[in-house]
C-alpha cells in the first residue's frame, strides 16, 4: 500500500506544480502551492507508518502550521498588489523586470 500512497502523493505534487506554472491568477497559483504542500504531507504520513516512527506525523503537523502562516502573509500580499494594480494576475506585477 505504501507504494500506492507515494504515487498518489507524487501525482498530486506534479499537478500542483503544473498549476503553478500554467495559471496566471495569483490566488489560483497560491492554491496550487497549497496542493503541493498537502501532497508532501501525505508522503510524510505514509512514511511515518511505513517505518513505524511518529516523527513523520510531527513534521507534517509543522508543515501545516507553516502553511497556515504562509497563506496569511501571501494572501495579504495579493490583496495589497490587487489594491495598487487592480489585478490579481501574476503577469501584471512586473515593475522589477528591467
Amino acid at each position: 500500500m505504501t507504494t500506492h500512497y507515494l504515487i498518489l502523493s507524487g501525482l498530486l505534487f506534479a499537478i500542483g506544480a503544473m498549476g503553478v506554472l500554467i495559471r496566471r491568477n495569483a490566488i489560483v497559483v497560491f492554491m496550487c502551492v497549497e496542493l503541493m504542500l498537502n501532497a508532501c504531507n501525505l508522503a510524510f504520513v505514509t512514511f511515518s507508518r511505513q517505518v513505524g516512527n511518529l516523527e513523520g506525523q510531527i513534521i507534517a503537523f509543522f508543515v501545516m502550521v507553516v502553511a497556515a502562516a504562509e497563506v496569511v502573509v501571501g494572501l495579504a500580499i495579493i490583496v495589497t498588489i490587487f489594491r495598487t494594480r487592480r489585478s490579481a494576475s501574476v503577469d501584471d506585477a512586473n515593475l522589477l523586470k528591467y
Partner: protein
Amino acid sequence: MGETITFWVLAVVSVGAALGVVFNRKAVYSALMLGTVMLSLAVLYAVQDAPFLAAVQIIVYTGAIMMLFLFVLMLVGVDSSDSFVETLKGQRFWAAIAALGFVTLIVLAFGNAIFADEVGLAQATAQGGYIRSIALLLFTKYVFAFEITSALLITAALGAMVLAHRERLTEKATQKDLSRARFLGDRPSPLPGPGTYARNNAIDMPALLPDGSVAESSVNRYIARYDVEHGHLPEDPKLAAAIRHRADDEGSESGDAESNAEESNGVTK
C-alpha cells in the same frame, strides 16, 4: 481490504479534484476543488493511523485556510478570471511536459522501490497511546520547534495586519464635500432608476423618458456589459441599442479605478 477500497475511491476523487483546481477557469470553483482534495487527504490520514493529523487537516486547512482563500477571492473580485494569453511562448505545453516527466519519474522510482513490510505505529504508540505519544514527541524532542512556531505565527499575524493596512492619505470626504461635488458636477439629481415594464421587471431594462426616448444612464454599465457579453438583450431594437451603447460607454477596462470611484459617487447621489 477496507483500506484498499477507501484508497482507490479517494485517490480518484483527489486526483480529479486536483486537476479541477488547475483547469477550472473560475477561481471559486478551484477553491471548492481544493477543499475536496483536502478533505480526501484528511480521510487518507485517518486511514493511515494519523487521526490527529486528520483532525488538524480539517480544522486548519479546510476550516481556516480555505475560508481565507474564499474571503480573499470575494475581496479581490470573484470574476477576476485568468487571462489565457501566454506571456512566454509555449509555456503551457512545456509545463505539461515537465509535470508528465515528473510523474513518470515518481511512478518509476516508487514503483520499482521495494519496501519492507509496514512496521505500523503499534510499537511507537505503545506507551500511553497515540495522542500521548504525539504530545510526548512534540513537547520534548520538538519543543524548541514548537516554541519557534509561536514566534512565526505572531510574525505572520503582524505581517498580515501591516500589509493589509491602508494609510488614509487624504481627508475622508464629508457629506458637505460630497454634496458640493455633486452640485458642481454635471448631474445634481440621482441617476434614473431602471425601467420596469408590463413584461419585464429586471434591472437591466433601461427606463423610458417622458418623451419616449431611452434613458441610457438608467442601466448600470457593468450589467449592460454582462448582457452584451451573454446575449441577454431585449427584443426591442431601441432598447437593445441603448444597452449596447451603455456597455461601450467608457468601456475601457483600464479605467476601472476611475469608473469605480465614479460609481461610488453615483451611490451617494
